[in-house]
């Protein structure tokens, strides 16, 4: 683990408030994840990879954008590890960097349709941009 990776891991732990050591590796988080098939790294892997300090791989993964924020892994974790908090922490570590917004305002108009509620647009900005 490089020093930078160690700092990143500490940052993710601090921002998320998650204690990865509570995980008993039952896999229920990934078993219940509705976005499992659309993720490269799955919720249980976020827990183990953060523990190993492999944050850069997570920051580069599309998994952080396909988490649905449905809180299923949070509700159903028998040890209250709550993996979605780690996914959010990695996501904000990316978008808080200069120029690293995942959703840019000028990309929005072509994504709109006539029925799309404001809620979809507002939430996408909150999840994908700073």
């Amino acid at each position, binding site marked *: 683990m490089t020093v930078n990776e160690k700092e990143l891991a500490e940052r993710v732990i601090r*921002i998320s408030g998650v204690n990865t050591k509570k995980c008993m590796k039952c896999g229920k988080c990934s078993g219940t994840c509705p976005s499992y098939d*659309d993720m490269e790294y799955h919720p249980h892997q976020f827990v183990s990879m953060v523990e190993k300090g492999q944050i850069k791989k997570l920051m580069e993964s599309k998994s952080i954008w396909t988490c649905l924020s*449905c809180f*299923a892994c949070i509700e159903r974790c028998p040890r209250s590890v709550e993996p979605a908090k780690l996914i959010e922490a990695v996501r904000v570590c990316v978008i808080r960097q200069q120029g690293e917004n995942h959703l840019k305002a000028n990309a929005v108009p072509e994504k709109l349709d006539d029925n799309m509620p404001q809620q979809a647009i*507002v939430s996408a900005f909150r999840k994908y941009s700073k």
Partner: protein
Amino acid sequence: MTYSYYPGCTLKTKAKELDKYARASAEALGVTLEEIEDWQCCGAVYPLALDEIATKLSAVRALDSAKKEGRDLLTLCSACHHVIKRVNNDMLTNDDIRMKVNNYLKLDTDYVGETNVVHYLEMLRDTVGFDNIKAAVKNPLKGRKIAAYYGCLLLRPAKVMQFDNPENPTILEDFIKAIGATPVITGYRNECCGGYVALEDKSIPQKRANMILEEAMAKGADTVITACPLCLYNLETNSTIENKPAICYFTELLAEALGLK
């Protein structure tokens, strides 16, 4: 009974039916909704990161506004309810967030989580009572088979939301019975529709919406109800299956049953 009411951004635009029929029905049931002044959009996603402060401020402003009126704060959109209820819990239980928010807002008196956040459905269940709704129904929706789609945001995390049993909720089914229809229980009713990633990758919400509706159809539902504009949009617009059930807000059916629509 009078509540401070937080409609939220979508209820003023794409989800006017959710708002309009909620107001009319509440009035008919003896409940007054006073829209709070100068409310701001809640942001639609609860910021899970512990060091996020600015993204929690609009919720606290709404909570403080209800506190000044000395009323409970009533919400209707699932996302607004989720965000405001969870931010309120932070203000009540997290010293660091409470201090930083109050340092920033400089209110006359610090806001420390005093306001009670109530969802419209909770008001129907706990204040009006489903028996009284049943008694007030003029056009019972007899013969209608209705599947309740809860989605994620009202139920989880249960220890904060305290809305209903997160795995086996009953509030919407009890509502369906009160308006004279028959509830259809589906396995996907509390699984996510994927709507939050509609701008990122539409194939995900499309798959989810199809699964949810196919199950409701297989179980004989003619209608699917929700409290969430994003769920409604996703089920209605992003699903690709044909002859799908009617998808509407629960408040539309309430108003119909009360003879207001």
